[in-house]
């Protein structure tokens, strides 16, 4: 355990600290905005300004409307902003409606698919999977790399790592990346495919969003640090099974399957422990 700081900081230092110590909830939006700006200014990653704006607008509007209708409160919009941008970057479609619909599905899923007042799917993961399942002939997901310049990629990896570390979720990202490389090696051994080919996906922007935003989502990860590490190893494992079956969007689907399963298991364990204490009945009783 670290020792408490006893020295009194100078007023100047305090001012700087107050500037730097802004609400942690803004860190992720700042990072994803950086990814958007760097990616677009470097390579023009956006399908279009209008479609991205639509995804963000629908996401925020849905969050406000549903938060007010269901809970009667004004919700914090950081999460909706991230969802909107994720949809804007990750979804690819010549049509505009999939962007709005995907955002609407993503946000609504948070309010509908809940267990013990907690949503169990990462919203954008759910929304994008839903669109790929339901409108596969109209949408695809970002599956290309950004270009030959390493610097934007390095910048995003560094910035992303610092921010998830600051949010105390770096262990999730690091564990997943390590597991990905191990399973890539395994896949290469099984299929005879070049190792570089198996590693290739993680060097693309889709994975950067997946690693920094989807799998680290505080609302849809289990409570214990060890549990989170086990969950992302399971995600990488299921992803490998899907990849061995040539599923293009394996990481999305793996998280779609493993994430809620882990939360349900955690809920069940909570209930089991609670029942052990009280000798009582089930969830919700």
């Amino acid at each position, binding site marked *: 355990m670290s020792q408490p700081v006893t020295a009194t900081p100078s007023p100047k230092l305090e001012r700087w600290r107050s500037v730097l110590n802004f609400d942690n909830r803004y860190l992720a939006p700042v990072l994803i905005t950086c990814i958007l700006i760097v990616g677009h200014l470097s*390579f*023009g990653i956006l*399908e*279009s300004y209008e479609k991205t704006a639509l995804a963000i607008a629908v996401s925020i509007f849905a969050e406000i409307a*549903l938060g007010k*209708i*269901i*809970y*009667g409160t004004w919700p914090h919009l950081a999460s909706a902003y991230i969802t909107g941008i994720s949809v804007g970057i990750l979804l*690819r*479609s*010549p*049509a505009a*409606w*999939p962007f709005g*619909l995907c955002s*609407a*599905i993503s946000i*609504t*899923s948070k*309010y*509908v698919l809940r267990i013990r007042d907690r949503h169990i799917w990462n919203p954008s993961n759910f929304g994008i999977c*839903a*669109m*790929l399942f*339901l*409108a*596969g*002939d*109209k*949408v*695809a997901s970002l*599956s*290309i*790399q*950004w*270009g*030959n310049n*390493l610097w934007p*990629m390095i910048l995003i990896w560094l910035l992303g790592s610092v921010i998830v570390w600051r949010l105390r979720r770096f262990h999730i990202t690091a564990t997943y990346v390590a597991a990905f490389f191990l399973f890539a090696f395994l896949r290469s051994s099984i*299929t*005879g*495919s*070049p190792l*570089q*080919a*198996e*590693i*290739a*996906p993680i*060097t*693309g922007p*889709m994975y950067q969003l997946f690693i920094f935003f989807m799998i680290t989502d505080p609302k849809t990860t289990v409570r214990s640090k060890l549990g989170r590490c086990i969950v992302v190893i399971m995600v990488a494992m299921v992803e490998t099974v899907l*990849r061995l079956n*040539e*599923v*293009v969007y394996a990481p999305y689907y793996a998280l779609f399957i493993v994430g809620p399963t882990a939360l349900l298991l955690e809920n069940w364990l909570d209930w089991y422990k609670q029942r052990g204490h009280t000798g009582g009945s089930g969830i919700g009783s």
Partner: protein
Amino acid sequence: MTEALVARRRVLLSIFFVGLLAAPIFLKQPSAFRGVGSETDARSSALSRYGFFLEEVAHSANIDFVHHAPVLDAKLAPIMPEIASMGASVSIVDYDRDGWPDIYVVDSRDGGKNALYHNLRDGTFKDVAAELGIANLNRSGSGVSTGAVWGDYDNDGYEDLLLIKWGRPELYHNDQGRGFTRATEEAGLPSWINANTAVWLDFDGDGLLDLFIGGYYSEDVDLWHVTTTKIMPESFEYAKNGGRKYLFRNLGQGRFEEVSEKLGIDSRRWSLAAGSADLRGSGHPDLFIANDYGVSELYANDGTRFQEVGGQTGIGFAPKSGMSVAFGDILNSGRFAIYVSNISEEGILIQGNNLWVPKEGSSGKDLKYENLAGDFGVELGGWSFGAQFGDLNNDGNLDLFVTNGFVSLDKNRSYWYDFAKVAGGHSSIIADVKNWPAFDNRSLGGYQPKRLWINDGAGKFAEVARAVGVTETYDGRAVALADLWNRGVLDVIVANQNGPLLIYKNTVEPQNAWIEFELEGVTSNRSAIGAQVTLYWGGRLQVQEVSGGSGFAAQNQRRLHFGLGKSDRVDKAVIRWPSGKIQMIEEPAVRQLHKLKEPA
């Protein structure tokens, strides 16, 4: 808020959520991936419903040409089917000026023979390439053919042959239809270009045809003797390590000067198709380049220099896999829309083809385009390649024929997963062939039907390929349109990669009238490439421009074909020659070809 109220709202929200999940069913237009019409529609049904019917007649026309892909360096073997996936080409030329269109097709195999099918006027053709000296052009060490465009570069009245290759480009002078003489050395063409596109145009308006050639692989790559396996694009959307571009200014006397960089064309994107037309009404031909692995480029021509205006016109924003360029006045508004084909594969990659339509109120230097492919219904083709506009049913509106299909091998095994996996990787991975999983006889975007969209003239196209007789699923590359038998209808010629050349003979509802123009420049280049004809009839107008190459590795017939619908009268035809001269023909007779010479 009471718990009961919250619960009630949750129920309503759940219903709303189910509605959202069901929404794609209602929002999706009929899928182009499935909506390919009925196979059972008979000729009479197609004629009555769509006004035309296509019948594949290559064999009975004595054409049994089959294209062969190249076999490249063994170091490229793991993904040879992907790399050696282009080369099939078709161009239409009346090489002997007998008034009947002939067909030139190329092979891409070492030692394979190109063919020039001379039109025998009786429904059949005869291959005369060997006797005229333009068959055996795929000799080992010189590369293999990937396309051909015809233009009368010395204004002697006979169309000359520019052959592009993954290898040494060749210029052949047409000796009055009796033979061809190699003119490559005198022209000063480079020793090697890995080219997939070339266009004749008179960019400086001096009456001599100039030449654009676009490189795909870098010109220092000899695909038969690679020194490195790092020959692939550095990115699948932002690649700039392709072949350079060449603009050859015609100096006369069969000599050319390379001026691309000097005049503002300095790009190393991976060009697959180019087209030239006066898009801004400046009187000078602009140049549109469709690039694979990146954005398209539009070079605005002021008569002395080119300026890349893709970004400011809107066509250079979203990177795709441009593979074809076709111009057409699809709204009969006197302005060209531009169709660029791309890749769409259900659930994997939905780029959608682009239909760039000029924005209302924008013109000249402020010209802006918007992609209306989705609105017009011509967005999803498949792995699309060559596309051409032409009025196939003579109803007065330009229709659209699009070829599709990339690599058709084992029908039951797909390379898509491996392709998508590596294409998402960093340049250091994807640029190197040896990092790619072996193709292993799998298909990639293979066995895809063609699309034939007919235009209702009001902004909607309907897909009718199967219904009108286009049912094959070879890997289509080039498509060209020509009135092969001088009947006043456009026939369709399709060159397939590793597949047969197909000739679709068109039968059109006879009530629909037509008119054709064959132009010959005097002050302007003799091929009249760049001349525009604006036709006025029945309160409608349509503009067409004589082209020096369009689509993918293709060239339509030189003459311009207009369908007129039920009108039996044309008010006037206004010809704007490349020299700037304007010629007006009052009430030209319909149902006939008009041969016009540029007035002195």
